[in-house]
């Protein structure tokens, strides 16, 4: 049996899913789309059932790609019963989608979630009356506290077994008359929707469905025009708004019948926005929260990274000691293998784990949309939206979680630009290069200068990119969820699924990449590698030998410093590089191709095409920025 969870954003659907899903939950895509869902096996009454968490949607309009996939999935016979999660504290809004669901003629159980929140704001829901009015079972629950979950799934299981079909809601007489005529003429049409649901969608002006039906019934468009004209005459609105207006009318009437409004308890949570979104203190808290978050991730990561790296260094020494000729093929490949493993264990995971937990907490509290509210004006000046600030800030720790955090952006354009820009934010590894080279030899002021220069380059690139990829969204429309206390299970489950994605998909490639580079090194292809990079090193006025460290730097950015010593034959960089060369090299390293782990995460999140576009863009920006820095250095030294 398969149970699908559906609900509007912020209704607590994912919290419910996290309460029942095990650690084996899988994320998948609807075929051929980027719309994702999560699935897990759950034991109900001794039977194993599949529970699917569908993306949160406000309505089931076929015009929105995500919503269209959801309808197709619900009506595909793969789903035995739908659990419609409703927020009891905002009932009428959620019920408009329930009315739409009833039209699909699939077994439904309603999970009336957030009963505690409704109670807090003084709303009393008569659960039995609601169930009777809708003709479907309604189970009251509090997902965040794990209450009512067992009865919900037992009921869903029962309904799924019996295949109890709900009855669609009845609209006003005039609309029903048009519907019944249209339904009749659609009864032989092939579609994933039943004739009545199809008729409603067509009157609503669903263009993809209209195109599909027009092939079978060429006269349908003119029929719809007649209906639209008739409805306009009576109601003074287009047929699409008549249908949506009727739905919200049905929902509002129902709410009036089954709820009582009592005394509202004003608590600290209701006042929190006055503080966190204050024109002045709001930004103070924003900086403070982000600083604490960054600091926590950074210090936890640093605290683990050094001992772990030492451990792996000892392991490498021990391993090399076992061989008579440490430069031979086998020990070199083994070392590369260890380096690939240690790159994941010691460099990425120590930052990724605390980061994902922290991001999950901020997400579940409901703070991220507030960040968007505060930063929207500033980010607009760069041609971006408020939410894009989050990946930038996170990029300073490690670019891998920064790329992952672009998931909070709905728009593909926004995700691409934010991902591209956050790869230019100097992560902890590049900090090592800037500090090891520029701060150590030329002083901390110049290192800081490189950081400021970096931010300027990001701003200019943002401006250019937002011109190149024009914004189609006219502005922000974003619901601010009520502040909630995150649950341990939701946060850890979410973090675990994301960590597993890195471990399973990006890490193996990191290890393979490491081995391939070591084989190339063993075969003494460094001359060819240097020649390959020669156009770049020549243009930037750098020694030819920087080719190898630059190529290895793609694997792990700090290698471009570590291997620079090997390549130039001296770890005393002041003897082999001029000041301007050091600056040019550091600037180039900060911007060029993101490290392999970052590239793999970009491929996973945004696809291979965008991975190459971002790599190309970064290299171009790196060349321009490094040339510019070279020019500046020549002038000032």
């Amino acid at each position, binding site marked *: 049996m398969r149970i699908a969870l559906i609900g509007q954003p912020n209704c607590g659907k994912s919290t419910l899913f996290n309460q029942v899903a095990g650690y084996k939950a899988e994320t998948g895509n609807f075929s051929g789309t980027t719309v994702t869902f999560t699935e897990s096996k759950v034991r109900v009454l001794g039977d194993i059932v599949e529970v699917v968490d569908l993306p949160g949607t406000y309505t089931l309009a076929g015009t929105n790609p995500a919503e269209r996939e959801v309808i197709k999935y619900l009506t595909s016979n793969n789903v035995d019963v739908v659990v419609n999660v409703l927020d009891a504290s905002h009932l009428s*809004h959620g019920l408009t989608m329930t009315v739409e669901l009833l039209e699909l003629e699939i077994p439904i159980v309603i999970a009336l979630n957030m009963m505690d929140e409704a109670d807090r704001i003084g709303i009393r829901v008569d659960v039995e009356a609601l169930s009777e009015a809708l003709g479907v079972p309604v189970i009251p629950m509090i997902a965040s506290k794990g209450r009512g979950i067992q009865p919900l799934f037992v009921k869903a299981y029962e309904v799924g077994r019996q295949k109890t079909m709900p009855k669609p809601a009845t609209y006003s007489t005039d609309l029903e008359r048009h519907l019944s005529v249209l339904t009749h003429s659609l009864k032989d049409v092939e579609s994933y929707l039943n004739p009545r649901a199809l008729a409603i969608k067509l009157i609503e002006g669903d263009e993809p469905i209209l195109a599909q039906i027009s092939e079978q019934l060429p006269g349908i468009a003119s029929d719809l025009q007649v209906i639209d004209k008739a409805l306009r005459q009576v109601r003074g609105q287009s047929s699409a708004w008549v249908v949506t207006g009727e739905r919200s009318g049905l929902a509002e009437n129902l709410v009036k019948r089954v709820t009582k409004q009592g005394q509202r308890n004003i608590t600290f949570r209701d006042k929190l926005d006055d503080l966190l979104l204050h024109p002045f203190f709001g930004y103070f808290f924003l900086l403070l929260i982000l600083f604490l978050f960054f600091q926590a991730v950074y210090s936890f990561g640093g605290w683990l990274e050094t001992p772990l790296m030492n451990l792996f260094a000892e392991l490498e020494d021990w391993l090399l000691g076992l061989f008579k000729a440490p430069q031979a093929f086998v020990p070199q490949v083994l070392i590369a293998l260890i380096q690939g493993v240690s790159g994941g264990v010691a460099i990425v995971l120590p930052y990724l784990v605390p980061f994902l937990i922290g991001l999950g907490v901020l997400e579940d509290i409901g703070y991220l949309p507030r960040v968007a509210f505060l930063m*929207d004006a*500033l980010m607009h000046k760069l041609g971006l939206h408020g939410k894009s600030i989050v990946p930038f800030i996170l990029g300073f720790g490690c670019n891998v979680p920064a790329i992952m955090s672009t998931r909070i952006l709905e728009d593909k354009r926004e995700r691409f630009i934010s991902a591209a820009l956050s790869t230019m934010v100097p992560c902890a590894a590049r900090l090592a290069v800037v500090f090891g080279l520029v701060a150590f030899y030329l002083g901390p002021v110049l290192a800081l200068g490189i950081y400021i220069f970096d931010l300027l380059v990001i701003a200019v690139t943002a401006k250019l990119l937002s011109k190149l990829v024009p914004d189609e969204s006219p*502005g*922000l429309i974003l619901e601010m969820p009520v502040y909630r206390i995150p649950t341990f299970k939701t946060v850890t489950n979410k973090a675990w699924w994301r960590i597993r994605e890195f471990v399973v998909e990006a890490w193996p490639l990191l290890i393979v990449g490491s081995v391939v580079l070591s084989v190339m090194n063993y075969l003494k292809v460094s001359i060819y590698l240097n020649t390959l990079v020669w156009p770049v090193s020549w243009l930037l006025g750098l020694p030819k030998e920087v080719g190898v460290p630059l190529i290895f730097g793609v694997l792990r950015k700090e290698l471009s410093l570590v291997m620079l010593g090997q390549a130039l034959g001296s770890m005393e960089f002041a003897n082999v590089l001029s000041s301007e060369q050091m600056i040019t090299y550091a600037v180039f390293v900060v911007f060029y191709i993101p490290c392999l782990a970052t590239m793999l995460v970009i491929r996973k999140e945004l696809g291979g095409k965008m991975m190459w576009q971002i790599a190309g863009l970064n290299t171009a920006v790196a060349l321009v920025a490094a040339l510019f820095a070279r020019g500046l250095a020549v002038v000032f030294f």
Partner: protein
Amino acid sequence: MKLLDAPKGSLLRVIDYRGGKGVEFKLRQLGLAPGHKIKILRYAPLGGPVMIDVEGRSVAIGRGIAARIDVEVS
């Protein structure tokens, strides 16, 4: 009156939206349909979005869109 011209704290009723169909659809999804009552909660500084209360929920709307929403004092 435009939504954008209403001061913080004012209680309003939505009359109409003049703009693209996509935005209108999204606004209606969030409950900003003609006839609905809303309250202005706060404006973000420096020309940032405006936050309004729609049936007990907080919704942030960019000023570009808010300038196209016709409202009357309720």
